[in-house]
């Protein structure tokens, strides 16, 4: 029987008896008795379970911080895992981040500490500079209830860009170790099976053969169902081993993101071509989540909020849907059909998402409102592709999330604005237009009234930012600019 093979703190593991739906966290703590990795929430939101997972990339090993509570053991196939136990050098010497945390008095109860150490180690390993916004980005996935973070942030600042330690050596050894691994096709335990297709046709065939199967990209949404609700379908099909799905293609008219491209991998492209999308994605989950999660996964689960989905609507993205019969692009309007429903038919899957490049004078803007800036699910997400000429709105695609059972375009809003002068008075009655487009509900993220009011104000912000650049020179228009 095939086994899942990976390196764990430098040691080969070959697992042929754990259930395919066992989370990596449970595996580490119970099977391996590596209890430094903690369970704080089992929903990928506290970071206490953070580990590093290394993959070969152009011969080198890249370690990413991930939430072990959301990952299933088969996802470790052909990776090199480092836990807090492996952070300490074999001779017992502390890793620089451990030393820095110690020196900064950055531990109180200590339960979150291993997770912070791992997030910081990944940050340091990535070689990023000691800029505060990067540090917060790197630590946004880790919660501490005792310290108030100041000493942790100081520790992180201290290690940023620092010399690498024994982990660099480990990375070389891990990369060499993983090089010779031959691919496996499936991992089966009883009635559960985790498939590892390695080509697009193979994936299409499996999807057709197993219409009940769940496609597993990063597992940051579906893994939640396994970890918290202990529900799973008998067949899971990994997408991340299919090279075509990991591809990012930069074309003249659009940029195409393969369905297994993670948010982290896509971010540099967003930053260049759609900075506002990059800014929204940076607030989506945490690095641990973005290192696993994919835009296609977000789209396939058709979240009513789904931070990226309103952006895809506004950008007029095309969803390339493949089946055994071939691949065809589908508009967002055709793709999202209802609350957590898509038009994907049995046998179909998302191959890629195409984002049309902006053409002059189009601009793209996106806003996310949540209680907490980082790692929170939005009350409202708004995305706008707007083209202005001589102070008049030439074209507008406006889309909102969090305003109804699905993210969708605000057609009444678009109608009210297109062709009008781009002034505050054009927006005077925009609240009514929004109320025609959306009937949001009251929930723990916000009341219907707040959502409508804030959504209208986001249009006002859009107007101020795009029509009144003079104001930004006087005083910041957003808190982020302070």
């Amino acid at each position, binding site marked *: 029987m095939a086994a899942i093979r990976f390196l764990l703190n430098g040691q080969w593991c070959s697992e042929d008896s754990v259930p395919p739906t066992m989370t990596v966290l449970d595996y580490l703590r119970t099977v391996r008795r590596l*209890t*430094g990795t*903690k369970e704080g929430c089992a929903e990928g939101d506290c970071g206490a379970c953070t580990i590093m997972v290394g993959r070969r990339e152009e011969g080198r090993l890249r370690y990413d911080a991930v939430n072990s509570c959301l990952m299933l053991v088969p996802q470790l196939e052909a990776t090199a895992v480092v836990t807090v136990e492996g952070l300490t050098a074999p001779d017992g010497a502390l890793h620089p981040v451990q030393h820095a945390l110690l020196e900064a008095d950055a531990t109180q109860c200590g*339960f979150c500490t291993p997770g912070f150490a791992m997030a910081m180690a990944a940050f340091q390993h990535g070689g990023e500079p000691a800029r505060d916004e990067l540090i917060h980005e790197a630590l946004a996935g880790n919660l501490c209830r*005792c*310290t*108030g*973070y*100041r*000493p942790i942030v100081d520790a992180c600042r201290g290690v940023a860009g620092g010399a690498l330690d024994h982990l660099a050596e480990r990375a070389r050894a891990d990369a060499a170790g993983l090089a010779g691994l031959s691919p496996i096709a499936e991992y089966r335990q009883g009635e559960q099976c985790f498939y590892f297709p390695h080509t697009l046709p193979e994936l299409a065939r499996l999807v057709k053969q197993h219409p009940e199967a769940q496609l597993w990209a990063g597992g940051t949404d579906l893994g939640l169902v396994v970890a918290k609700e202990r529900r799973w379908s008998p067949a899971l099909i990994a997408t991340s081993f299919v090279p075509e799905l990991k591809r990012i293609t930069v074309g003249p008219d659009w940029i195409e993101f393969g369905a297994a491209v993670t948010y982290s991998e896509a971010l540099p492209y967003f930053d260049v071509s759609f900075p506002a999308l990059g800014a929204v994605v940076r607030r989506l989950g945490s690095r641990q989540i973005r290192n696993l999660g994919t835009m296609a996964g977000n789209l396939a689960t058709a979240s009513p909020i789904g931070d990226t989905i309103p952006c895809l609507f506004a950008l007029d993205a095309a969803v390339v849907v493949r089946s055994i019969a071939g691949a065809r692009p589908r508009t967002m309007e055709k793709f999202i059909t209802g609350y957590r429903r898509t038009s994907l038919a049995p046998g179909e899957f998302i191959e890629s998402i195409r984002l049309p490049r902006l053409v002059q004078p189009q601009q793209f803007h996106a806003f996310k409102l949540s209680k907490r800036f980082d790692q929170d699910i939005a009350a409202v997400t708004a995305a706008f592709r707007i083209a202005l000429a001589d102070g008049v709105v030439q074209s507008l695609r406006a889309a909102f999330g969090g305003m109804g059972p699905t993210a969708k375009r605000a057609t009444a809003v678009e109608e009210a604005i297109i062709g009008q002068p781009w002034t505050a008075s054009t927006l005077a009655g925009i609240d009514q237009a929004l109320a025609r487009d959306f009937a949001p509900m009251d929930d723990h993220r916000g009341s219907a009234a707040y959502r409508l009011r804030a959504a209208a104000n986001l249009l006002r912000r859009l107007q101020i930012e795009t029509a009144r650049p003079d104001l930004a020179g006087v005083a910041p228009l957003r808190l982020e600019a302070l």
Partner: protein
Amino acid sequence: MSELTPSAVKGGAHSPARHDSAAGHVTGRALFLDDVANAPGTLHAALVLSPHAHARIRRIDAGRALAAPGVAAVVTAEDVPGRNDIGPILKGEPALAAGVAEYVGHPVAAVAADTLERALAAAALVDVEYEPLPAILRLEEAIAAGALVSPAQVIERGEVAIALGYAPMRLAGDVRCGGQDHFYLEGQIALAVPGEDRDIAVTSSTQHPTEVQHGVARLLGLPLNAVTVEVRRMGGAFGGKESQATIVAGIAALLAWKTHRPVKLRLRRDDDMRATGKRHPFLIRYDVGFDEDGSLLGLDMTLVANAGNVADLSPAVLTRALCHADNCYYLPNVRLRGLACKTNTVSNTAFRGFGGPQGMFAIEAVVEAVARHLRVPTELVRRRNFYGIGRNDMTPYGMTVEDNIIERVVEELEGGVDLPRWRAEVETFNRTSAVIKKGLATMPVKFGISFNLPTLNQAGALVHVYTDGSVHLNHGGTEMGQGLFVKVAQVVAEAFQIDLEHVRVSATSTGKVPNTSATAASSGSDLNGMAALNAAEQIRGRMAQVAAAHFAVPATEIVFSDNRVFAGNKSLSFAELAELCWRRRVSLSATGYYRTPKINWDFKTNTGRPFYYFSYGAAACEVAIDTLTGELRVLRAELVQDCGRSLNPAIDKGQVEGAFVQGMGWLTTEELWWDEDGRLRTHGPSTYKIPGSRDVPRVFNTRLLADAPNREQTIFRSKAIGEPPLMLAIAVWLAIRDAVASLADHRLLPKLDAPATPERILAAVDDIQARFAALPAEAR
């Protein structure tokens, strides 16, 4: 007691010694309860929680659950061999719902199986037949129904009605603050191991091993000496593992009792948040009379707490809230009424500050209203009303404030930050900024130290010196991350004049130090430090006698210093003397004991001296809000905190910063949201948002007040630190209100309850703009 001076030993009192488990924390080697390997045969437990806010339990059928693979037992209230009551103050609070489920999340039954997976699966198979009953979910409904969990409390002094009647100015209003989940990173957990002859050993993540011991003994009908409860460390607690830990440990013990096997119950985060209590939300109604100078002449204020389904610690929380509704202000004519209302929600409980934050929140809302009415800075009104020294120094509950240093603390804060200039900068910004508005506010804090109930202010310790000179320390306090163990170890190192590394602290156990109080009320090092010092001094005295005989000098000439014991220029190492004591057959072990002096409380009149002393602090805080969305950034916080003569400035600084950020969370992003069926919909970190690293003020300076030894004889003249700084965060809430008020040229009082979520801030912005626009032009 002795007044020791700083010495050459490493890690003595007042040194910034590192947390004793820090290396264990960063390497992951520090063991939490769930990290300890299970004994063979250990069962795992899962809870069956009520889906109804209020329902009669007609029937519980465990048949399907018991038939499921690996299931060893299912327990319900019927299975309790002793008394199904774990109420910490009042009677009649069951560990497992008996007959009636009173909130969504109420534990109704529990399952033990060979794996957690199977226990969770089987819990879903327990068939419970409910008959839903009308539920009271909102505080207003409870007030209307007169539903209380404990009698109303009143603290009254002077002639309130007359003072209000004659006051030149008078304002009435109401304001609310929300609850708060503790969100300790380590969830509730307990392991119960049955021993021989009806013994049961419980390891529990608890702040109060003795209460767990009592709860387990009561449930199982055992004498206390059959139950031993131990805790090495908790992954955070904050009050949430005081009474609430007993629910978890009690159910684990019940399952262990029934199965005769070790049982571990670890709540998953959602169950933890649904089933266990939180900080009390409060509704505050005030009627205040004052004069043109801002002197508070009369105050009639009612504090209504949402206690949840049972009393738990609510009566005590309410008392502390009332005892802090004066904060730093002399209130000559005052009536403070407290109601703890019963609702069909989870029973609220202790949380860092224990009512103090809500009491201070209340009075600060009043002071701000007065200041805005008079259009003067809040600081001016505060200063006008600060407790005096030798005059105007009697609290509403009849205690004289003898150690008042609030003016000094406030001056240190304001002088250090140049408040007028800071305020001018904020105002300049606001004049030119259309969308973003800034706010600035300060906050003084006076927090009473000691449990309100005098009985609880006692502690014990156990110290052994071994023949190699190493010291084993045990005391009744528990380590939840606050650094209590290292602080008390420093006390012992200081007493023996040995390096800290020679003192080892062991897990807290009811078998070593009995009849303890909760590690709570900020009192951990005050109480246990003194008890440990008492034990160490007894041993040191005996050792000095032996040394005196050895060197043939009077005992008074023996000096302990720098890991040695001196008689003039002759000396022995501490270890040599320990060995010598053993050979001379002198005991090297002692129990220590301490009770706080001077305190008393009359429950009939709600008067007395409940607090040994007060801890003081002050904060200034700058925030910015987005007037289009209500989003918030806390830009800067400047804190000054009185720690007396700090036992450990590194640990104390961590407590101040951590408490402030936790308080900030309470007042900003942390919103508990129940739906119309009484279901908590914010039951995990994905929906309940505690502060993250970016939320911490970018400029965040903390100063411990220098040269401020406690005037009372506390342990080395230090002061308690756990809770007081949490209330400094009220400055954040006031600063948000200031930013909102700037939209109406500071002429109107904002309407903004806590938590100040973006939604509430935006509503306050819209409201104040509408009211300002409606003012006649000449008033604008």
